[in-house]
Each structure stands twice: as C-alpha cells, then as structure tokens.
C-alpha cells in the first residue's frame, strides 16, 4: 500500500493542491459537521447528564452527573452479558461469513462453467430480504416442532426448542446473521478475484500447479487485501448486531441473545438518554479498539 505521502511538490503546486484538497473534502466535511460532529458532541453531553426523554424539549435543563452513567452501565451485569453475547456473535459470524463467501466466490469465479449467474443471484438474495419478514420465517423453521427439528428427527436427533433454549438461541441468531451477510461478502470477493490477472494463473498452470495448489498459493494470497477489508467491514457491521435478536427473541431467553446495541436501544426505549449515551460510548471504545487492531493488521499486510 502506498501510504507514503505524495512527493513534495513545488510551492505553487502545493497551494493549488491544498485548495483542491479542501474542495474535494468540502461536501464530506459539511455533511459530517452537521449530521455527525454536532450529534456526536451532543450525545457526549447527554452521557454526562441525567437526561431522559422528558427533557428533550429543554435539553439543557438537566443535571450534570459526571461519570455516574458510565459507572451505572459498567456495574450492570446485563450490559456485560450483552457485550459478551456480541463478542460471541462476532467471533463466530465474521470468520464463518468470510469462509463461506470465499468458497462460493472461488467456485463461482473459476470452478464451474454453467449456472454462474444463477448461483450468484441465489446467494445474493438474502442480502436484500426484509428482516421483519425473515424473522417470521426463522421462528417457524426453528420452532420446537419446526422444519429443522423434523429433519433432525429423521436421523434420530431430538432437537432443542432452539429459540427458547438459553444455550441454542444465540447460535440460531448467529446463523441468521451469517445467512444475511455472506452474499454481500461473496460479491466483494468476486470483484476482488476478477481483478487478479489471468496470466498469473496460466503461468502457474503451465508450471504444473494443480487447482488446489493454485487456490492456496495464488488466489488466496492475492485476495488478501480484499479479505482483510471484508473482515474489517464485517466486524464493524456485526459488532452492531441488533435487528436479528431484536425482532426474533427480543434478547431472551434470560438475556442469552441480548446484544450490546439492543442494550442501548432498550435504554433509549426507557427514555434514559444519559445511560444510553454512556453505553454507546463504551461500545464506541470497544469498536475503536477492534478497528485499531484490524487497521494495524491491514497496514502490515498490504
């Protein structure tokens, strides 16, 4: 990666570059200032006050409570539980999405001749589905007497009541997260694969490398930048997992599927804007830390 700054240009060039730089940044900076910077400062202020939904019309008519909200969140076992659940979802879903997507992308790119378009479409469809409707489907498939258990029964397994079971509910949610995202990453990988020059493969084939060998020693290494980018994307996406548990289990049973963002949403729902904002900033720090690690890796690898 060319992280090096452009070669130092002459003075005149530099000033015209500065102008161009600002002009190119201006639209972003404007939108950022209005819709992000100001709201970010506002919510930081909220996190230090006892603001509730009742204070919305008079937002400054609140009491400063220092770090009380942060202390309250950090001493709430439900918050830790939701953070832990979120961690499990990220740890399982991110690698799973990447592996499935990689397999499909490689298979569709070079593995088969016929039906590429069909399979691409099929695997992309979950990405555009509506979570509200899919939630109904998921509940049906994983009901105690649902399709999944009926299938397990044919091979002699007595399946659990997936979504009502404190152990199995989270894996069932994770499965939905994976189902909804792998198609997205597959498309990213397909784009990345097509950017790999054909000649490299042909050269390797002439050298007598088998298809597995070429996959491992050419395709995957050349796809590393895309893979890393996808892993950052997926981590940031999935760490904010919310809709799936929200519409299916509402965080239950016994908080076993409560996610960190759901915790924040609940606090907002209770009108506790102060605690909600504090919890958000704690999650923000966690995401920041994760991203930092990934950026480091990304940088060292590319």
């Amino acid at each position, binding site marked *: 990666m060319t992280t090096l700054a452009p070669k130092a240009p002459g003075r005149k060039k530099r000033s015209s570059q500065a102008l161009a730089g600002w002009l190119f940044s201006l639209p972003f900076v404007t939108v950022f200032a209005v819709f992000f910077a100001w709201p970010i*400062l506002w919510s*930081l*202020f909220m996190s*230090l*006050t006892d603001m*509730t*939904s*009742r*204070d*919305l*019309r*008079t937002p*400054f*008519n*609140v*009491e*400063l409570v220092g770090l009380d909200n942060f202390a309250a969140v950090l001493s709430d076992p439900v918050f830790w539980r939701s953070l832990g659940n979120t961690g499990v979802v990220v740890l399982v879903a991110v690698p799973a999405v990447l592996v499935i997507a990689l397999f499909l992308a490689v298979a569709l790119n070079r593995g088969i001749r016929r039906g590429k378009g069909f399979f691409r479409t099929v695997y992309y469809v979950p990405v555009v589905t509506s979570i509200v409707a899919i939630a*109904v489907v998921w*509940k049906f498939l994983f009901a*105690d007497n649902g399709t999944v258990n009926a299938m397990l029964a044919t091979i002699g397994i007595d399946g659990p*009541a997936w*979504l*009502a*079971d*404190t152990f199995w509910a989270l894996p069932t949610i994770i499965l939905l997260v994976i189902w909804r995202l792998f198609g997205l990453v597959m498309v990213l990988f397909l784009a990345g694969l097509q950017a790999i020059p054909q000649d490299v493969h042909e050269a390797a084939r002439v050298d007598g490398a088998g298809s597995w060998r070429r996959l491992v020693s050419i395709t995957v290494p050349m796809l590393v930048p895309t893979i890393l980018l996808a892993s950052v994307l997926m981590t940031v996406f999935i760490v904010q997992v919310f809709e799936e548990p929200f519409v*299916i*289990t*509402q965080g*239950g*049973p*016994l908080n076993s599927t409560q996610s960190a963002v759901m915790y924040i949403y*609940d606090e*907002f*729902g*209770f*009108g*506790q804007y102060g605690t909600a904002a504090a919890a958000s900033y704690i999650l923000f720090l966690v995401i920041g830390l994760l991203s930092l690690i990934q950026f480091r890796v990304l940088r060292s690898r590319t």
Partner: protein
Amino acid sequence: MTTAALTATALVLTACGRSDAGTTVETAEAIDGSPATGEITIWAAENEGRALSATAEEFQAANPDVTITVTPVSFDELPRKVDTAIASGEVPDIIQPSTGLQSYVSAGGIAPVPDGVTDTSDFFDSAVSAVTFDDVLYAVPWYVTVQSFYYRADLAEEAGLDAPTTWEENLEFGAALREDGADSGTFVAPSGTLAWQTILPMIYQAGGSVIDDGEFTLDTPEVVEALGHYQEFFAQDISDVQKVITAAGEIEAAFADGSIGSYMTGSYSYDFALDALGGDASKLGLAPLPEGPVNGMGYIGGSGLAVMADSDNQESAWKFVRHATSPENAVAAYEVSGVLPANQAAWESGALAESPTAETFATQLENSVPLPQVLTWTQIRDLLATYGEQLAREVITPEEAAAEMQREAEAIGTGEQ
C-alpha cells in the same frame, strides 16, 4: 460544551423541578360548535387508524373546510416516533398515545383537554383516570382493553370442567387440560410483555400494588404471593416454559390447534382467537379473570385520543376528537377495528350490546384499575418481565424475585424530582 454544561446547571438550580416544567395547565378556550377547518394529521396504529379514517370521511363531509390525514404508525414504534416528534416540535395534531401518554405529558408534548370537548362522566371511571395526571385530563378516552380468561370451551366440556373462578380452580383447570394432551393447559407467558401483563393483575388480585404513595411496594407479602402463583404454573408444568411467544397471534394459533388449552390476555385477542378457530364460536369460552385471595382485578389498557401541544390547529383537532369519541362513533370503531368503546353509552345499544362477549368484558371493566402511574413505568414493567422470566425458568424464588425487584425499582426511582 462547557458553556452548555454551565447553562444546564444554572437552569437546574433555578428551575423548581423539571418534571412539572412542561405540564403547566393553560386555560384553553372552550371548544365551540362551529365547523372545523384546516388540516388535521393523525398518527394511529394501522388497525385503530382504519376506524379513524372511516370517522374522518364522514367528519369531512360535515365540515367541508377540513382535511384529515390518518397516518398508520407501527404500534411498537409509536413511542419512539412521538418522542422524537416532541423533541423537534414537528408534530402531528392528534395521536393515539396508548399507554405512553404519561411520558409524553411529562415531556410537555400533550395539550390538556379544554372545556367543551367531553364530559368525563360519559366514560368508565378507570378509563378516565388512565388519562388523568395531577388532576388534569390529557386525552379523551377512546377505546379500552380489558383482560379475560380465554379457554377452549369444547375441550373443557369434554373434560367436564367449568371456567375457573379462583386461582386454585385455575391451577386445577390447567392441570386437567394438560392431562388431556395440551402442551399448556393454561398458558402463562414465560417472558416479555405478556409476562408482565400476566403478573400485574395477579399482584392486584393478591391485594398488592406496584407503587403506593410514591413508594415502591414490590417486596410485600402480597407481591410474593402473586409471584408464587405465577411460578406455580411452571412448577406444576401447567404452562410450557419453552413456548416463548415472540410473535403476536402465536397464542391464538396454538389455542386453535389445541396445544394451548386456555390463556389470559387482553380483549383484542377475542377476534384473533375466533379467526384462528375458523369462526367457530362454540369452541371459544370467555370468562372474567380468576379471582385471587383478595379480588379479581385486572388492569385497563387501550388508548385515548390526545392533541399535541405543538399542533397549530388545536381547535379543529379537538372538534374531531369530540366527534370520534362520541357513543355512535365508538360503536363504529368497535365494528371496524374491534376495539371496545370507553364510552359507557356505547355499550347500551347497537352492535356491542348484542355481542355475546359484552357482558364478560363489561364485568371485567368494572373490575379494572389503570396501570401504575409512575413516570418510569416502562422500566418497572420490564423488571416484572425480567424476573417473571427467571421465575418461569425456576432459577429464583418468589421471595428473592420480590426483594430484587424492589431493590432495582428503588434504584430506578419514580422519575420525579
């Protein structure tokens, strides 16, 4: 930032308590009988909104200078939408506030009901007190929901059972239907909204309360007794703890296929249950809630119609509210949307009076109280649901649950300052 914070502190020091900052009672002018004009926008849930749309059409015919737009809003997301609307001042004219009314009032978002709109003696007392805060009326009662005991009349008859009238009978009834093959003889929700909706009436029936005179009363022996009764359904395996209801309508569907023999919930369930049973009313039994040691109290739900404080067409909005809450339009709403009128006169004649369910619902309505009037109610009810779930899964005793709920409720506070 610092300036804002300092301003905030200064304001807090000078303000005399902010919970009543927005609830100043303005002496609004009485609403007369002249025609309504201008534009009126209404936020209502899809189902209830259909009834309002029908009423609006007829209202517009009588008041040619008025245009009414009814916007359907997701029932679950209405509070979020109203909160943000109040915060920004970009509000509709009329909302169906349901049980969120109190928090919108304390945010200063709701206009008090002026003279000339309604006569509160027309309505059930409990419906009026549900929309009254600090002796000020903030909405006109529109429809009510009450709770009842629903059972499969055909299955009960086969088993030679009558509808239970007491807690003990209920446990026997449930156990008997369970024997006969239902997964849940009496279904009691093990989590979520339905759990607190089940536990709260039991607390009343045991003679307990959630809050009394500004103090939480969740660790009283009465509450412990109620929680014990709730847990009993799971301890005796009368209700299937694995049956987690996450979709509205699931209970009625399971009721129709016989895996749930009976359940307790709001009056809105009747039509869905009948629908699920293929319209066969002979299978659907309806009875008042089984009585606890003290009484057979339930709580009253439903909604009034409220006018937003920031509405710029309040006068016409009130005229429409007055129109929509009249006995004949309340009956019309019952016919269109199946919601029970809060107006007593609406029960005396017409479609509702002829309905076989009216008597049961009316009996329970006489036996109902409003939800606890505490600003932090959404959090308190979440406590009931959370500890209800732990009771259902038998990881906690009623005594422990009561003590924990009291401790947490005190930490949450009443929201008053």
